[in-house]
């Protein structure tokens, strides 16, 4: 049941949330929690302030569920709320000297924060989510190749994934095709990814 919900589109989840479906809400939170938390964490806010941004962002999401039925890109919407909420907390904290302040949020208006930061985080979250939606073997292999090892560490990858070294190339190719299809459904394609370098 949870797996099915996990694969629902954002709009389907929002519709279920409006019907009071708690599993849909849990799925929505799980889907975007890492993206939301990315903003306050990158701004070097305290764990308490990160919690505050997190809770406020999802509270805004909850209050806006009806409006979100009309929103095409929920990931961007949520990321924008998290970015603005983070900015507010950063501004509030400026009254107290901070050890370090993330330059990105050191602006007079949240609209001055470059969009590319938001776009990159949205895409990074999308890649993680897409990998998570692949089958077990692809999920394991791509996770190791993307997040754990350098591209040349095939020996280590083969050992950890339990795949013969010579099979990694072909399996990787098949997994990438699958990943590409999932990402395209999420609005991430070769063109949009290649627009900006991280």
């Amino acid at each position: 049941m949870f797996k099915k919900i996990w694969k629902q589109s954002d709009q389907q989840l929002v519709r279920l949330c409006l019907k009071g479906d708690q599993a849909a809400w849990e799925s929505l939170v799980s889907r975007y929690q890492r993206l939301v938390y990315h903003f306050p964490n990158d701004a070097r806010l305290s764990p308490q302030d990160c919690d505050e941004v997190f809770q406020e962002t999802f509270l805004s999401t909850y209050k806006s569920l009806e409006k979100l039925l009309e929103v095409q890109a929920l990931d961007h919407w949520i990321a924008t709320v998290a970015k603005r909420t983070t900015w507010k907390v950063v501004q509030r904290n400026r009254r107290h000297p901070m050890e370090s302040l993330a330059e990105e949020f050191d602006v007079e208006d949240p609209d001055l924060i470059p969009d590319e930061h938001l776009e990159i985080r949205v895409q990074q979250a999308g890649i993680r989510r897409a990998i998570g939606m692949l089958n077990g073997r692809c999920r394991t292999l791509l996770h190791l190749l993307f997040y754990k090892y350098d591209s040349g560490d095939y020996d280590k990858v083969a050992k950890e994934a339990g795949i013969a070294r010579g099979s990694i190339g072909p399996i990787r190719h098949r997994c990438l095709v699958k990943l590409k299809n999932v990402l395209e459904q999420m609005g991430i394609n070769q063109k949009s990814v290649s627009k900006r370098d991280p």
Partner: protein
Amino acid sequence: MDRLENFWEKLRQLARSDSSVDVPETTHNKALSIFPSRQETKSKYIFLLSPANLAAVRKAGSNRKYFYELGNSIVQLEQANQETGSRLSGFVHGIEDGPVTLYGDECVFQKSISNGEFLFESVPFGSYRVCFSHEGECSWITDLRLNQVTDS
């Protein structure tokens, strides 16, 4: 490099620069607790804590209860309904007896702490702060906000 390999490399670069971290479970649970649980879909209200001083919130049992742990203090809010108002109880470490005051926008409630415990009943919805008076000084433990969020 063909297009697919080029795409692979771009994705890998993005993934490698991903500095996001796992979300702590307590943080995750806070977002879950915003949503009324199945048994409470007919509830008209949920409680929300103004998170300015929030240290930890966790949901306990099947009843909708929130525990706010702030330093040495714990404030507990229980789900209420429109008729009875809210119920707020807590325990304070280190203060056995003394006044505790609930300051709202339009009303003030005062109770005594007995053996470290206090209880407010039938508190109307609104914004509140809780203060322990100890040796003549008011010690604010948190900002509480009780919000009406749905009309079922």
